[in-house]
């Protein structure tokens, strides 16, 4: 298994991404691909550089060295707005929803539809309903209820729907199943599959190997800031994944 891959068909390709914070080398020479229509799982121990990497992709900071290819073309965004503009949507652990706003208002926050410069609530409501339907989110009775009243899984659904309605091509999910119950985890995993089934590239960060092996098409393992390995999920098993995460290597039997 090699750590460099061809850019064929990859929506996002990272080439030698490096990021330093003073003496701390957060990311060193990270190279891997995120293809469209597939779920790529990014795993690694605490401090392996997962958060640094997604923040780089999301445009919160720019890398010190290396290149990002988007649809084969080099991009270098200087802020999250630019990353969003090309279709990179990040769903952080804390979900970044406004509790006092309802589902529709949250889904369109920052991208409100207007009619004669005023909020076009009806159009937004219909579009929101359509998107939730496409994502098979059926557990919310009314999309006009404030998100404060929603369960963790439902909030996750709203966050995903928000990304989708704003024409996401790549959705980055940071620990989407953390702190969720069994049924809600089930719901979120289904959501991730639906999302990639619609041709969206999904990059999932998770500690939960059960969830990873259930939804991931591809797996990339970070170890101490560099990419230990990346490849098809079928090339991994639980043991090899854990070994890569904890040591950066795997015994030959595990690596398959």
């Amino acid at each position, binding site marked *: 298994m090699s750590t460099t891959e061809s850019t064929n068909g990859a929506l996002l390709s990272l080439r030698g991404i490096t990021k330093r914070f003073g003496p701390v080398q957060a990311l060193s020479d990270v190279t891997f691909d995120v293809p469209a229509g597939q779920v790529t799982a990014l795993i690694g121990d605490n401090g392996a550089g997962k958060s640094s990497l997604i923040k780089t992709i999301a445009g919160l900071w720019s890398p010190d060295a290396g290149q990002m290819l988007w649809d084969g073309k080099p991009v270098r965004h200087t802020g*999250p*707005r630019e990353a*969003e503009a090309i279709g990179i949507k*990040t769903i*952080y652990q*804390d979900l*970044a*929803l*406004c*509790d*006092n*706003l309802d589902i529709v*208002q949250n889904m369109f*926050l*920052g*991208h*409100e539809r*207007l009619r004669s*410069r*005023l*909020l076009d609530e*009806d159009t937004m*409501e*219909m579009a929101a309903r359509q998107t939730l339907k496409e994502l098979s989110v*059926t*557990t919310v*009775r*009314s999309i*006009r*209820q*404030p998100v*404060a*009243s*929603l*369960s963790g*899984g439902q909030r996750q659904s709203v966050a995903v729907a928000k990304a989708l309605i704003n024409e996401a091509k790549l959705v980055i999910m940071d620990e989407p199943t953390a702190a969720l*119950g*069994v*049924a*809600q985890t*089930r*719901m979120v995993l289904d959501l991730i599959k639906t999302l990639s089934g619609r041709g969206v590239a999904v990059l999932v960060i998770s500690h939960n190997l059960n969830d990873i092996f259930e939804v991931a098409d591809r797996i990339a393992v970070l170890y101490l800031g560099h990419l230990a390995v990346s490849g098809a999920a079928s090339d991994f098993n639980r043991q090899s994944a854990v070994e890569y995460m904890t040591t950066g290597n795997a015994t030959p039997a595990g690596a398959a």
Partner: protein
Amino acid sequence: MSTPPAEIKPTEGSESGLSDAELTSAAPEVLANSLREYLEASWRRIKGGESGALPVLVGLIAIGLFFQLENSEFLSDGNLVTLLGEAAIYIVIGAAETFVLLLSEIDLSLGYGVGVGGFAIAELIAPPVNLPWWLGVIGGVVAMGCFGLIQGTLITQLGLPSFVVTLGGQLALLGIMLELANVDPTAVGGVIQIDPNSPIYKLGSDSMSPSLGWIVLAVCIALFAAVTLNRNRSRRSRGLHTEPIGVSMLTILGVTVAGVVLMYICNANRSHFAVIHGMPWVIPFVLIIILAYSWLLSHTRTGRYVYAVGNNPEAARRAGIKVKWIVTLGFIMSSATAALAGVVYISQQGSVSTDIDGGGLVLYAVAAAVVGGTALFGGRGRMVNALLGGFVISVVYNGLAIMGVQPAVQDISTAVVLIAAVSLDAVVRRRAIVR
């Protein structure tokens, strides 16, 4: 704790397939298909702590009954109109404070903002400047808006706490007000009189003729009914969930009754010596401000962003909202609105004086907003809350005055009532959060 079955299968669990949390927090109109269901949903919300304006309404009725039993003069037509006039300034500064409270900030400079706004307008429309009254008002509003811009910029760009900046701002405005009185040779003893022929003077002293009042009321109710029914028809035709027709009718009926009662009270003769009747102009002036601000908050992007920033600035920032600008805008709006309160002040006093109680006014601003139901910690509240809250303050002051209570006791009693109202609100809302 395991996940409730209602989570995955909406048909299980509670009868309607909703969790208790959903049932209590969702707006009644989104759950109800009939008037009866609507009322039931509303009641569940109240029990769940999402009481909205109800506590303040109940409190208002209780206080009103108390004063009426103490002195039957309280609910007389004449005194009710006086009450509405007295409430005007509390309502407008309450609306000013609402802008910043929604953003989880506070503006303590508003009290002397009323004074500076009042002085600026009074001097602009008097000799030697002699601007037309409306240009004078614009001048005062813009001047205060600039002051708000400075405060907002300091708060957002330097990351300073708003209470410190606006506390300093209060002192600065006091100084500016004294200086404005100082440089004006016509300000005798720190007082500028308003020309009794000026429309600004008449705003506070004159009334609509009763017939004009009825015509305006009829037009307003017709417009309200048309807008309500048209919106419902449009939503229904697009297959969106619409409030039951009975609810719309009941709302329109309620507005009509309230409007007719208000107009009837205003149009009764309230003088023992000559005939004085009609709605004081200051009432529509205040209602237009509240209506315009409500509309701004509910129908524009900026209004939506005010709520988003007030609840979760980080989420707002990630959504691409210019958080610092929205907060700055909140302070511009609060200061500019203080100048509008200055218009109410000088029109009712017939003059503006450096003796204005800016320190007291800012307390009323916060109290009017919070008593009415606007949260101190941002993201929750509406302009209509300031309307109700301002009314409560004037009822308490007026009622105590009619009872013949000493001013010192009036102040203490008002403080007790206001803090009690805020506490009641906090207790009711804590139930909503704990649940």
